[in-house]
């Protein structure tokens, strides 16, 4: 039955090329209008929000001066706080030189305490734990180790094997040149010079920051300086709210216009073809079938219009270099457009199904 209805609806649509073409054009115009206005705005909004949502803007940096008493034990306590994506502790910097060049350029080396060291651009499974170091390209250049391997000597007398290069994440950019020695076996008593906490979302930066400060357990909290991006988080919610409300209003207006046009078109079509619907009723078509046929016909035409509209919008946005609003927005728009077209078609379909055969077929 469904294939027969689809075939009949498709044949009906093809047999009324003018009305069908206008319906498709209305849907194309609606989709293109939304995509090039609201869609473009949404794309830009997503770009701005994506930038705000980057890790760097979700980071909380706590710099501990000497004597603050902040130790690596804080990392265990951080595990009990909700809303934290990642946290890591860094010791204060210790100068180091290339072991093969005594008196060479000094670069700062830090010990790292924490888990998920891959977030620092370091392999998760170091070959020799606690004795290997990784350096950023800038640090490698200063150390004179272009091959990314060699020994480094710290001014504390310790030495480590430098085994690879690391990509410095944005939130560590301020530490460049970076040389890290991951410490997998922490006693909890090691001094921390820098604690970095990354919140799961920008809006969590402020509450997470407050929670972190409450569990520092430092000897002298006044020697700990906190740096957050809470202002950016506020800016984010402001942008999202303002753009969202503008977009919703525009989409609703365009959908209402599309619905009205489709309803008028179909109503006109039904009135022009009332004899046709009277004949169908006489020959045994149920009201439900006639409604189903008209709605299927509308769905087919709307579907064609939506697909063409989306493709046309993609081409225009691509050509103009504007951002694509994304699959979620596009799918939602397509669903809304289809629902609007079907809702608009419902009344004309009911009118069509109510045509009385005797009124339409009798010849005076």
């Amino acid at each position, binding site marked *: *039955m469904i*294939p*027969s*209805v689809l*075939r*009949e609806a498709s*044949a*009906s649509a093809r*047999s*009324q090329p003018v009305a069908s073409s206008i319906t498709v054009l209305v849907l194309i115009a609606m989709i293109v209008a939304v995509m090039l206005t609201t869609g473009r705005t949404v794309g830009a909004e997503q770009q701005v929000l994506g930038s705000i949502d980057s890790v760097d803007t979700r980071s909380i940096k706590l710099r501990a001066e000497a004597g603050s008493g902040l130790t690596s034990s804080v990392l265990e306590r951080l595990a009990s706080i909700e809303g934290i994506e990642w946290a890591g502790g860094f010791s204060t910097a210790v100068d180091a030189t290339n072991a093969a060049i005594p008196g060479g350029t000094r670069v700062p080396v830090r010990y790292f305490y924490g888990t998920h060291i891959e977030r620092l651009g370091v392999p998760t499974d170091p070959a020799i734990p606690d004795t290997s170091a990784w350096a950023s390209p800038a640090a490698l250049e200063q150390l004179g180790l272009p091959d990314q391997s060699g020994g480094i000597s710290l001014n504390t007398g310790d030495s480590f094997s430098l085994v690879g290069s690391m990509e410095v994440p944005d939130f560590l950019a301020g530490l460049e040149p970076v040389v890290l020695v991951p410490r997998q076996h922490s006693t909890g008593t090691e001094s921390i010079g820098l604690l970095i906490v990354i919140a799961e979302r920008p809006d969590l930066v402020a509450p997470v920051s407050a929670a972190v400060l409450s569990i520092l357990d430092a000897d002298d909290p006044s020697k700990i300086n906190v740096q957050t991006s809470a202002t950016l988080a506020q800016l984010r919610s402001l942008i999202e709210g303002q753009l969202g409300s503008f977009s919703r209003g525009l989409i609703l207006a365009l959908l209402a216009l599309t619905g009205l046009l489709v309803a008028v078109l179909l109503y006109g079509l039904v009135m022009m073809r009332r*004899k*046709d619907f009277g*004949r*169908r*009723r*006489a*020959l*045994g*078509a*149920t*009201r*439900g*079938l006639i409604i189903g046929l008209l709605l299927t016909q509308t769905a087919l035409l709307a579907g064609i219009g939506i697909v063409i509209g989306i493709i046309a919008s993609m081409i225009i946005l691509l050509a103009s270099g504007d951002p694509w609003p994304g699959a979620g927005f596009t799918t939602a728009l397509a669903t809304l457009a289809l629902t609007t077209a079907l809702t608009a078609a419902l009344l004309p379909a009911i009118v069509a199904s109510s045509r*009385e*055969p*005797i009124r339409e*077929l*009798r*010849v005076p």
Partner: protein
Amino acid sequence: MNDIVLEARDVTFGYVPDRPVVENWSAEFPAGTMTALTGPSGRGKSTLLYLLGLMLRPSAGQVFVSGRTCGDLSDTKRARLRAHSYGFVFQDSALDATRTVLDNVTETALYRGLPRSKVTSQAQELLERFGVDVPVLRKPGQVSGGQAQRIALCRALLNDPVIVLADEPTGNLDAGTAETVVAAMRERARAGAAVIVVTHSLDVATLCDREIRL
């Protein structure tokens, strides 16, 4: 005695309250019989046909199909009964001008829940039998009035219906085409259907098995 396929019992109907077009009208239509409904204009012949065709509901009385009353059937069930048991020939052929000849003949398959492919060969046989010598993909607007009425006849007979209702089927036709149309309906009656023809034509009435004058 032939089975009564269609029966009207004390049927009353009016388009305006208290002004019945049909009043307390009763008749039985046996299988295998072709009946002419005749009478002057305005006596309710076409209205009776639409009452018998379950497209109008009588204000009083009952219509029975194969012994079963149709008064309590929902609109949907009446439509399905029309699709499965009736064949209709209208005064002006009532073809869909936007569709092909073959689409028009096979239209009722959809209403009976059949795929078009199952009735296409039967439709082509009917078109050939009734002398519709135009390409099946042509539109009704491109054929003569006589050919159009033959196409409408093919549509009515596609279903092998047990009831055929025809409203002035030969009104606008030349003698040859009219003869073909009447012969086809007689043939359907001989095959066991109850055929009812509303007509002003004495010739058509004469060819029927019986005549009911209104």
